[in-house]
């Protein structure tokens, strides 16, 4: 049975490049939860890459990268096209969680139960991973969109008891950072462990007077200036600048962020000029006060994935699979060799 895989990346995020998209800033900065990009690195790791590795272990040779609405609905016409091209079983992963899931076990469960659709759940609900058989792919042609709502359809769900975190939530994301820094999950910081529980990425620059309190991570090409204190439970991702005397505790600083001198960032998630307080969920714009900003990239990064030349599937540039007309970011689906 030919098996295909689709990874749905929320719309507005670049499919081709790692770590390019930023979070959607809310219109008002008070008590509004922002939507973080699921493509943002976590301790230098790309969650998409981790899912791709799991799919590769399943024996699938290539997958489709697609962009869709943030609620995770997949446009039926695209799935139907995949079915028509010979795919008889489809693994759909919505990039909203990091889960250390054995996809082979999910597949076994799916085959044993003989369900047209199997959705993976943990104690908190859907994880955004589902398996569809040809029957389901045909059935959804009747509907406008495909939604993996097992409560609605009364399908038995695959219960996942392993490690999982939702990466859209700033607080869960911070929990994942803490777990990865302390070895409570399989994710490891991408860098060199210079001391116990202290990792530094390639090309990072640390002044002599910097105080590092583990566990902590400093990403590639990040500059940490004099008198800065980093940690504990901190992730400063790649290409950031933390200016003199600033303290960062129990927080994450996302890529290309500049933090002004003398600040105290505690229990926060900083993305450029925006800071979300993890305790209150309040988002503030620090730029008017000159406290933080987005660092402009010197040049666009090259795409991280190469498209597969035509081999039965429609190529993105020849036969673009467009998104629903309501989608604001119409990007073609991209096929990626694993």
């Amino acid at each position: 049975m030919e098996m295909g895989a689709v990874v749905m990346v929320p719309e507005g995020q670049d499919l081709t490049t790692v770590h390019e998209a930023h979070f959607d800033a809310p219109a008002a900065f008070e008590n509004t939860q922002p939507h973080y990009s699921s493509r943002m690195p976590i301790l230098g790791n790309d969650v998409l890459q981790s899912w791709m590795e799991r799919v590769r272990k399943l024996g699938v040779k290539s997958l489709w990268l697609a962009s869709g609405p943030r609620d995770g609905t997949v446009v039926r016409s695209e799935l139907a096209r995949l079915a028509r091209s010979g795919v008889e079983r489809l693994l759909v992963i919505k990039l909203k969680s990091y889960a250390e899931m054995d996809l082979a076990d999910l597949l076994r469960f799916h085959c044993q139960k003989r369900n047209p659709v199997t959705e993976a759940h943990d104690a908190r609900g859907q994880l955004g991973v589902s398996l569809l058989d040809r029957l389901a792919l045909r059935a959804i042609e009747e509907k406008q969109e495909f939604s993996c709502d097992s409560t609605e359809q009364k399908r038995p769900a695959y219960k996942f008891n392993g490690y999982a975190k939702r990466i859209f939530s700033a607080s869960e994301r911070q929990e994942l950072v803490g777990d990865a820094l302390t070895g409570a999950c399989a994710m490891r910081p991408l860098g060199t462990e210079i001391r116990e529980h202290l990792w530094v990425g390639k090309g990072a620059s640390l002044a002599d007077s910097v105080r590092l309190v583990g566990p902590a991570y400093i990403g590639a090409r990040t500059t940490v200036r004099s008198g800065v204190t980093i940690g504990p439970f901190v992730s400063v991702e790649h290409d950031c600048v933390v200016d003199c005397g600033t303290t960062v505790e129990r927080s994450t600083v996302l890529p290309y962020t500049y933090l002004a001198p003398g600040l105290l960032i505690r229990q926060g998630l900083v993305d450029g000029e925006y800071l979300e307080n993890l305790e209150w969920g309040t988002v503030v714009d620090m730029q008017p006060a000159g406290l933080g900003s987005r660092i402009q990239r010197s040049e666009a990064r090259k795409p991280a994935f190469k498209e597969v030349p035509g081999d039965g599937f429609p190529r993105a540039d020849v036969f673009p699979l467009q998104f629903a007309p309501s989608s604001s970011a119409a990007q073609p689906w991209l096929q990626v060799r694993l």
Partner: protein
Amino acid sequence: MNAGRSVLPFPCAPTSAGRRALRKDLLSALRVFSGSPVVVDLSGCPTLNHEDIDLLLECIAQVAGRDTQLLVVAGTRGNRVLLEVTRISSLAPVFNSVKEALAYPQNAAEIDTEDQRANQSQAVGSA
């Protein structure tokens, strides 16, 4: 206004001329007060820019070394976050509302009295 305590609205004029005038008024008012806490109320400012942060620091400097305590009313959670990030909250007590700020010296006095009582009883016990 509460017995002996003054509430000064923080200047949030949209124009720089208006802001300058209000800034002057605020700093003059702070110079006058002595002995009792002064509440600077940011409730009228939905967000703070670098001039606001500068002025707040100037206000704190104005009362530093004198027997006047400056209390800050953040008004919004966003302002409260910015006051923490800039460490202003470690220089002056920050409150959510004017009511809380006005109650603070009384509470603090009560806490001080309780601490003194506890210290006295400990001293008596150890003697």
